[in-house]
């Protein structure tokens, strides 16, 4: 379960300040598929960064399961992050590691035994359709393939939540559809999915809960929402 209580985030620099989030409140229940939508700068990515502890809120409280994210020390964040799978627009793969190693990294960092790694990683790669690319480096893969490696990595730890920040931003329509279908499939298996996107077609197609944002505020939160252009 993820809870945002009166969360605000203001970025300061060079004497200027810009409000990214303004007193946000919402709750995401286990096994939900939630889309965060809005134009660029609406605050979607800031919410993602706050959940994974990449940024700290200026005000308010964020709860993730048993963790109070706002009170976690930076050297304790990794414990919480092992319960979250993250997928980014720019894939964020380790360039000098193969697809297999990229996926295995999350397990190795968590201290999983070698036998488990040898069993789970091929299964995850098979699920995203990349068994034949296990020994390829990211530079040898297409954008869609890279994103599928990122999805395999995100789900390998059997996380409570997968957060995808504009996962299809760099992909063509066919790859976009494949990635969204993969996320829906993972959600059906019981993992909460948070999808931040500004892709109207995706939102209208999946017909799940939509939190619409504008200028750092939530303007709409509907159970089976659509992406309504402002």
């Amino acid at each position, binding site marked *: 379960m993820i809870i945002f209580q009166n969360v605000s985030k203001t970025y300061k620099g060079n004497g200027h300040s810009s409000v990214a989030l303004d007193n946000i409140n919402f709750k995401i229940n286990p096994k939900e598929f939630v889309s965060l939508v809005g134009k660029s700068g609406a605050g979607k990515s800031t919410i993602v*960064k706050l959940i*994974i*502890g*990449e*940024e*700290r809120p200026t005000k308010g409280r964020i709860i993730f399961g048993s963790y109070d994210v706002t009170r976690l020390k*930076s*050297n304790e*964040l*990794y414990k919480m*992050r*092992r319960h979250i799978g*993250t997928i980014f627009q720019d894939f*964020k*793969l*380790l*360039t*000098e*590691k193969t697809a297999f190693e990229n996926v295995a*990294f*999350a397990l*190795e*960092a*968590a*201290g999983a*035994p*070698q036998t488990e790694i040898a069993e789970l990683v091929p299964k995850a790669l098979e699920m995203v359709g990349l068994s034949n690319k296990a020994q390829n480096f990211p530079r040898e893969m297409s954008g869609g393939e890279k994103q599928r490696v990122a999805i395999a*990595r995100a789900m390998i*730890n059997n996380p409570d939540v997968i957060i995808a920040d504009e996962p299809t931003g760099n992909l063509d329509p066919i790859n976009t559809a494949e990635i969204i279908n993969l996320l829906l499939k993972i959600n059906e298996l019981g993992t909460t999915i948070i999808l931040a996107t500004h892709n109207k077609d995706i939102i209208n197609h999946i017909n799940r809960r939509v939190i619409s944002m504008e200028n750092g505020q939530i303007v709409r939160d509907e159970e089976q929402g659509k992406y309504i252009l402002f």
Partner: protein
Amino acid sequence: MITTIVRITKYGWQNFTRNAWLSTATIAVMVLALSVFLGLVMFNVMTGTIISSIENKINISVYFKANTAEDDILNVQSQLKSLPEVASVDYISKDQALATFEEKHQNDPTISQAIDQLGSNPLLASLNIRATNPNQYQIIADYLNNNSSIQPFVEKISYAQNAGIIDRLNRILTIAQRGGIGLTILMALIAMLITFNTIRLAIYSNRESITIMRLVGGSNFFVRGQFLVEGAVYGIVSAIVSMVLMAPVIYFISPYGTTLVPEMDMWHYFVSHSPLLFLYELLFGVVLGLVSSFFAAGKYLRESQA
């Protein structure tokens, strides 16, 4: 824990081998820095040999009047030996002095004939004194000049004639020693800074990876550890390459050093001390590699945190 350390080591080694160009560039700079370090060690050995060679050539000789009894001279010798400033006192009797003189001039018939014609030994018995420190010759000379129990037997003291040269040599030796230490510290600092910055740059190119590793659940220890291993590998490989490259350099310049100071054989020193020199290089390289990696990785770890 063992599994984690094995994985950290594996990743550190992977970082090193898979970034071949970056590793080569880093090692090239580190080899230069380590070679400077090795050069400094050799330089200090060289100056040490030169200094001790010059020091060994400095001494004071006290010449005794022809009628002085040998017992009196040996008495003076034991008095001098008791001084803390004195390292050694060698007694050279009249006969020994003559033997040395004849041996030295055996190819000069004029001098040999002159000695023969004299019919007696014209040379004086003497005590050859070496100080523990070249600066202390003046103290020894003062002791000889002011001691009323020694003065009646003394014909002359060589220090008075050589005082100017000894003093100048002393000053040169002091400057050479201080300059050597100063130069060593300066060059070692430069080598350290170059190494530190090179490794920092190598890790700078991995800052994105540091962020990713943390995002997917890598602890600070797990992420930093890899770069520590990488830094240590840089140090080890650089120490090996530096030793291999410096060997022929020392081999070729060694004869020139021997021409300058006959007692100095750099190549022999390098070969006989190579395990120790390698250990110095290894320590310098690995410690620098570890420290540089620790701080550089720490910087990007902090930057990747909120």
